[in-house]
């Protein structure tokens, strides 16, 4: 079977530091695949190796069967990458930037598609504006457009919504969903776990260069049965016996894991006993954030 992206025992070492340690992953054609992990987990290194920006220390990576080193021309034609950094060439306009990018792939009469991409990303009004004059959000759209000029079947987005306002974020995801519906394979990394939960069919979680979880989003959520209790209290300390249930704490905000509803009664009882006041209270089924925290905790 040919996968959109397939890696076998991918390793990357920088001196003594192992950025990736034997990552084997297969992204199926047509799926929307999420790559999650804390900073420094190896997400960008993984993407960079697949894109040919970084050479692996060991292992193999293929894009739709094309080896990224031996058959780099075919592999790179099949792949569109939206880099994480907001980079641009200050010498050129949006249209020039997209024409150049298209030309780098050997497509020199591609204006119809370039216009269409600009239209879908609401860039048409800015087509002749210099890249320097664009807002951060607009520059991000140009990066997406640059990744699409050669109509790649596999699209990788590395933190595409980092530092982007809500409106643009939603617009961007609508566009990505559309690309996915049209048959493009999407691989994305994001810090916003709710976005991964909403967008991705399957998810891999990376920690310290290793895959620590890989499953469908549905199964990952199902592995965490029970409830999540979010509380805002009048103090930053909980009664000691509740410590084991705490998933996360930010000041007076606590996230607790509950196996079942009767456990809730026990928690509230202990809080009352300790004289702790509850300012906010929320009980709900788990989301990807809790799964993520739990998986990271376990490894």
């Amino acid at each position, binding site marked *: 079977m040919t996968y959109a992206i397939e890696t076998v025992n991918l390793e*990357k070492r920088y001196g003594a530091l192992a950025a990736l340690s034997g990552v084997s992953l297969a992204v199926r054609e047509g799926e929307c695949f999420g790559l999650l992990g804390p900073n420094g987990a190896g997400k960008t290194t993984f993407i*960079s190796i697949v*894109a*040919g*920006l*970084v*050479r692996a220390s060991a292992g193999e990576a293929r894009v739709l069967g094309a080896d990224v080193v031996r058959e*780099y*021309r*075919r592999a*790179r*034609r099949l*792949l569109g*990458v939206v*880099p994480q*950094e907001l*980079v*641009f*060439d*200050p*010498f*050129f306009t949006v249209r*020039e930037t997209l024409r*150049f*990018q*298209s*030309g*780098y*792939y*050997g*497509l*020199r009469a591609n204006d119809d598609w370039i216009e269409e991409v600009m239209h879908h990303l609401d860039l048409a009004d800015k087509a002749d504006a210099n890249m320097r004059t664009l807002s951060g959000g607009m520059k991000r759209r140009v990066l997406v457009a*640059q990744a699409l000029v*050669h109509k790649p079947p596999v699209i990788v987005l590395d933190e595409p919504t980092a530092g982007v306002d809500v409106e643009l974020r939603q617009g961007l995801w609508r566009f990505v969903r559309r690309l996915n519906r049209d048959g493009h394979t999407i691989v994305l990394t994001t810090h916003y776990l709710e976005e991964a939960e909403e967008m991705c069919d399957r998810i891999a979680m990376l920690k310290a260069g290793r895959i620590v979880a890989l499953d469908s989003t549905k199964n990952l959520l199902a592995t965490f049965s029970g409830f999540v209790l979010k509380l805002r209290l009048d103090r930053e300390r909980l009664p000691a016996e509740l410590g084991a249930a705490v998933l996360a704490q930010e000041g007076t905000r606590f996230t607790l894991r509950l196996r079942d509803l009767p456990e809730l009664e026990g928690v509230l009882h202990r809080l009352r006993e300790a004289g702790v006041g509850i300012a906010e209270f929320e009980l709900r089924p788990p989301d990807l954030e809790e799964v993520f925290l739990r998986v990271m905790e376990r490894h």
Partner: protein
Amino acid sequence: MSGFPTLFWKEVLRFWKVMFQTVAAPVLSALLFLVVFAQALEGRAGAPGGATYGEFLAPGLVMMSVLQNAFANSSSSLIQSKITGNIVFVLLPPISHVEFYCAYVLAAVVRGLVVGAGVLAATALFVDLRPVAPLWSLAFALVGAAALGALGLLAGILADKFDQVAAFQNFIVLPLTFLAGVFYSVRTLPGFWQAASHLNPFFYMVDGFRYGFLGVSDFPPLASFAIAAVSLGALTALALALLSSGYKLRG
């Protein structure tokens, strides 16, 4: 189709869009050298073959501008792309290391020749230049510009910050071009400095280029051309080896 023509064209447009800085300024600098030096030294400095000092100096200034600007083009473009991160746009597409090399070096040759032509046109206002073997000059300009374009590419690959490229330019390229016999005939130098000048590959490029204008040179032009071509070959081999390995470009 290959990405080479687009990358080459982008590199040409990059300097053309800021031509006051990349073309007009070096032409003016060369012209100032001509006016000041020719004024100060006319009649005092010797020139071979019965030429006036101005007729000797002008082709040297043209070639010096060709060399310095070819170096500046590839080195500044690459370091700028590396520092700002937009190098990723040319690393992601299926562009081979040979295409990458050719695009950057050819654009550097274009910049060198454009500035050289500008200096030549400007100096013609002050000096009556009649090239006796223009094809020799053209050949030296092409090979010299390509060699410096390749050297600039190497500097851009090796450097991690602007400061290092500036050091390369100010401590290597500038002294070697100034000491390449642009302002004087090396034959007028004391023995040691004459020998030292012959270790400088830029000397052969300047001397050979000037031969096309004056018909006389300090060194046989064919031998100079061979040395310039070998320099280009060595720099090309080194640049291609670094590009092929991805050194400092592909993590």
